[in-house]
């Protein structure tokens, strides 16, 4: 299986509800980033959480990181129909290795928010 696996693969909720997406990874990381993609367009950077951070907030977004479990979660509170998109986590490797600077993406979660 791949670095940066996400679950669920698809999530369908009503407007106003919270949406939680999870991401697991296998190797040591420098940081973990979450992105949103609308209808096959470019990726919008949502938030970066560093390996020494446990939680980060940005507006209605809350990201947690548990390096002991090699997992992260993205919580979107009070969801809106405009939040409908695919959400990807991506892990950045530690310095010193040949993978430094590269991101490894998960398979993504398709979120549908019904009005």
């Amino acid at each position: 299986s791949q670095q940066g696996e996400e679950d669920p693969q698809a999530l369908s909720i009503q407007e106003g509800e919270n949406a939680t997406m999870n991401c697991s990874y296998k190797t040591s990381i420098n940081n973990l980033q979450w992105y949103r993609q609308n209808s096959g367009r470019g990726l919008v950077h949502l938030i970066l959480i560093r390996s020494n951070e446990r939680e980060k907030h940005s507006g209605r977004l809350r990201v947690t990181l548990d390096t002991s479990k090699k997992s992260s979660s993205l919580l979107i509170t009070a969801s809106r129909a405009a939040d409908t998109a695919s959400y990807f986590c991506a892990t950045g490797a530690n310095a010193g290795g040949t993978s430094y600077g590269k991101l490894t993406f998960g398979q993504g979660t398709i979120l549908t928010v019904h009005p």
Partner: protein
Amino acid sequence: SAVISQKPSRDICQRGTSLTIQCQVDSQVTMMFWYRQQPGQSLTLIATANQGSEATYESGFVIDKFPISRPNLTFSTLTVSNMSPEDSSIYLCSVEVWDSRYNEQFFGPGTRLTVL
């Protein structure tokens, strides 16, 4: 952050032809990356393009098929050569913006390629 543009935004091409995709950034950056996203899939890194050196390709991608240029710190091109329908994908460039030692990456809007 960084503002990234790509040209073309989409194209429909015939089998056997080549397409060059341009990526322009609004600031000077050291590292640029090219990704491919096949239909319904996640992103896969094609290569890393640093200014002044040859691009570094990931496993499964070769220079003859995906030649890359990086003439300066704000611009790069990716060519998809001798295209086949399997090359139909969204191609995205990204740049790395440094916040201390954490590499935050920002993506362009993508180029949607359809090969007939």
